[in-house]
C-alpha cells in the first residue's frame, strides 16, 4: 500500500474510531442524564459541562454523544439495508438476460435519478418519522446505487472464463455465486458501501434538521443544528459542536473508504 494511502487510512480511521469509542462508552456512562436541564440555558463550558449547555439547559456534550449514537446507527443500519437489498437486486439483474436485463437497468436508473433525500422524505412522510423509518428510507435510496454497481460487476464476472470453467467442473450456480461471484465483486462493493456510509450519515442529519428524522426529545446532530439556529450568534457552541462532529465523521468515513480501495486489488494477495 502506498504511503499516502496508509496515511489516508490512518487519519480516516482515527476520525471514525474516536467518536465510535465515545459512543460505545456512552452506553455505559454519560456525564449527565439526558433530561437533566439544571445547567442553565446556553451556559458556557464549566461546572462539569465540557461544552456548556443547550437552550434547554441540557449538557451539550451528552447530547452530542446521544446524537453520535443515532449517526452511527443510521450510518451502519442504512448501509446494511442498502447493501443487502442492493446486492440482492444487483445479483438478480446481473443474471437477467435480454429484455429483463434492459428493464432492470432502466428501473435502476430511474430510481437513482430520484434524489435520495427526496425519496427518504417521501417514505418518512408516509410511514411517520422514527429512527427505523429513517434507516429504511435512506437504505432504499442507497440500494438503487449499490444495485446498479453490483449489476455491472456481476455481468463482468459472469463473462470471465473461470465461470465457464466452474460450470464445466460441475459446480452449481448457487455455489458459483458464493465462491466466485461474491468474492470477486465483494471488495469493490464494500468500498462503495463505505463511501455510502458518509452519505447515509449526512442524509440522516438532513432529515432530522427538517424534522423528519428521529423525533425529539431524541437527540440527533441534525436536530441539534436546527435547534441551535436561533441562537447561533449569541451562543455558537451549540451549533459548532454538532457541526464539527458531523463534518469530522463524514470526512473520516470517506478517508477510510479511500484508504480501503487497495483491498479491491486481487494482485495484492500474498501466497501462503
Amino acid at each position, binding site marked *: 500500500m502506498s504511503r499516502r494511502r496508509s496515511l489516508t487510512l490512518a487519519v480516516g480511521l482515527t476520525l471514525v474510531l474516536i467518536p465510535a469509542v465515545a459512543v460505545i462508552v456512552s452506553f455505559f456512562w454519560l456525564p449527565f442524564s439526558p433530561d437533566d436541564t439544571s445547567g442553565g440555558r446556553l451556559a458556557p463550558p464549566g461546572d462539569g459541562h465540557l461544552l456548556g449547555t443547550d437552550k434547554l439547559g441540557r449538557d451539550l456534550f451528552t447530547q452530542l454523544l446521544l446524537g453520535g449514537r443515532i449517526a452511527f446507527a443510521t450510518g451502519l443500519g442504512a448501509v446494511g439495508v442498502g447493501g443487502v437489498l442492493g446486492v440482492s437486486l444487483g445479483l438478480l439483474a446481473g443474471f437477467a438476460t435480454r429484455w429483463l436485463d434492459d428493464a432492470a437497468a432502466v428501473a435502476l436508473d430511474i430510481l437513482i435519478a430520484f434524489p435520495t433525500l427526496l425519496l427518504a422524505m417521501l417514505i418518512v412522510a408516509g410511514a411517520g418519522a422514527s429512527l427505523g423509518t429513517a434507516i429504511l428510507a435512506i437504505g432504499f435510496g442507497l440500494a438503487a446505487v449499490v444495485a446498479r454497481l453490483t449489476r455491472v460487476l456481476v455481468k463482468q464476472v459472469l463473462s*470471465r*472464463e473461470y465461470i*465457464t*470453467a*466452474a460450470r464445466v467442473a460441475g459446480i452449481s450456480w448457487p455455489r458459483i455465486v458464493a465462491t466466485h461471484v461474491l*468474492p470477486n465483486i465483494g471488495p469493490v462493493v464494500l468500498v462503495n458501501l463505505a463511501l455510502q456510509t458518509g452519505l447515509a450519515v449526512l442524509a440522516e442529519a438532513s432529515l432530522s434538521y427538517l424534522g423528519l428524522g428521529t423525533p425529539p426529545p431524541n437527540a440527533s446532530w441534525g436536530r441539534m443544528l436546527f435547534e441551535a439556529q436561533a441562537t447561533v450568534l449569541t451562543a455558537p457552541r451549540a451549533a459548532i459542536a454538532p457541526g464539527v462532529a458531523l463534518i469530522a465523521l463524514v470526512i473520516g468515513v470517506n478517508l477510510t473508504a479511500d484508504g480501503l480501495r487497495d483491498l479491491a486489488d486481487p494482485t495484492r494477495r500474498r*501466497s501462503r
Partner: protein
Amino acid sequence: MTDPILEADHVGFTYRGGAPVLEDVSLAVHQGRNVALVGESGAGKTTLLRILLGLARPTSGLVKFDGSPLTRTRLRDYRRAAQAVFQDPYSSLDPRHTIGRIVAEPLRGLGLGTDRDRVTDALDAVGLPADTAGRYPHEFSGGQRQRIAIARAVVCDPRLLLADEPVSALDLTTRVRIVDLLASLGVERDLTILLVSHDLGVVAELCQQTAVLEHGRLVEQGDTAAVLGAPSHPYTRKLLASVPRLPS
C-alpha cells in the same frame, strides 16, 4: 468399433428470431484420435463448443455421449469424462482463489472427494512443482497459467479434453511447449483431444482428424493429412493458402 466418446448428430443452433449460427453439424470423436475443429470468427466454433460441453442445448439435432444422448441426468458422468481448457489464460483462473483450490474445483463439483494428492499429481503432470498450489494466479505467466488450466482439466482423469484455442494467446516458444505437453498427456493419460483452433500448424501437429467449419456448416471433414494436404472445398483451400509459410 466402439461408440465415439462424443458425437454431434445433425446439430443446429439458432437464436430466437435470428439467423442460424450452426446448421446440420455432425462430427464424432473416437478414443485415441484427436479431432480438430477449424474455423474463423463467426464460424460458430464457440457455440458448437458450448453445446458439446453441455452448456447450451442445440435447437435441432442432439449431442451423444458414449453412444447415448446427453441428457441432464448424464451430465455429471459426462463431465467426469470430458473437461475443458479455454483460450484466455488471464480470464480462466479466478484471481481470488489459490492454485490448489482452482485445480481441485472439478473434484469438488463432480463429487470426487478432496484428495490433495490428486491435485499434486495433476500439477506434476503439467510440469509444475507441488508448492504451486499455495500461490495465486497473478504470480504466473500466460504459459504457466495455461498449464494450471490444463492441470485443472485433467485432475479428474477425463477421457476427453475439449480445448478452445488453448495456445492462440501464447508466444511462439511457449506455444510449442504447451502443444508438446498436450501431446504427451494424450499418450500418458489416454486422453483424446477435441481441439478448436484457427491455427493450422497446431492442428497439423496435434490432430489426426480435422473438420472445417464455415458460417455454421461443416464444409469438409476427414483425416488431417487429406484435408490439409489435398483440400477439396474452396474455403479449406483458401484457409491453407492464407497461412504464412516460412521460405523453404
